[in-house]
């Protein structure tokens, strides 16, 4: 049974780790487009996969969040990855499987998955 006591324990652990967490200037930002068209095209499972995988691998330097209209409906679901140096990669027509690969190759190992980028799909 998930109890509030368990949540307290999570809090205490998180507090102890606060110093380990990188500050936001050094973090990689992952933005998943969640406009009506993105959601209809399957953005929610992509976002769920990203959130879960980043949690599972304890990637404390990655922030996953949703964003609105990216303006390219025909390429939805769209995921943008922004690295600390300001470099932005736009992944298009994403699926949960592709999301896993982006986490592994790009977020963990720093290699852009070129075949999923907008450049390779136009």
């Amino acid at each position: 049974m998930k109890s509030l006591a368990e949540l307290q324990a999570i809090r205490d652990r998180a507090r102890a780790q606060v110093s380990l967490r990188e500050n936001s200037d050094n973090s990689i930002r992952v933005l998943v487009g969640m406009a009506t068209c993105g959601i209809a095209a399957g953005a929610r499972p992509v976002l769920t996969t990203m959130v879960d995988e980043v949690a599972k691998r304890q990637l404390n330097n990655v922030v996953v969040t949703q964003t609105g209209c990216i303006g390219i409906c025909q390429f939805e679901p769209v995921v943008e990855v922004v690295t600390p140096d300001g470099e932005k990669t736009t992944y298009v027509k994403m699926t949960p499987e592709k999301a896993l690969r982006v986490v592994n190759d790009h977020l963990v190992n720093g290699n852009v998955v070129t075949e999923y980028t907008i450049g390779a799909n136009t």
Partner: protein
Amino acid sequence: MRELSLNVMDVAQNSITAGASLIEIRVEEDRKKGELVIYIIDNGKGMSEEQVQRVIDPFYTTRTTRKVGLGVPLFKMEAEMTGGDFSIQSKLGEGTQVRARFLTSHVDMIPLGNIDDTIVLLISCNPDRDFRFVHQVDGAKLELDTRQLREILGEDVPLNTPDVVQWIKGYLQEQMEELLQQGGAST
């Protein structure tokens, strides 16, 4: 949409854009009556009466980048297709309530789908806002209020901490299982 919970994700996004600090999502299933009612209630900037009138018309949107807003009209159409109904009540400066009622036995009924995924993502992607989620099935209900979680977590542990997100997910799942047992027993 393939699931109504995806519409909820989309419509709640309007509340976020409207600057809401508190968003309440209520899902009320009455299996005997064959009825499902979904509410999305926010304390965002609200709309004038005239704006509300035009929001349900697909050629209305205040956004400048695109002319057509489809989220609300789509949700409305999905409710009406089942013989249900749809309403928006809004007041400038106070907030908005969207209500959609579905008749679940209709052939055009779209399943609710994974509402927990929607709630978990809304919370984890908007850790600075509060969400209240109520899911009622027949007589039984589950509730999750991020203001309560925040009280336990304190100010230094955000709601999007991965372990917290996983806890919320597990909590909703367990509560739902329990709720279905209770609800199932009463029918």
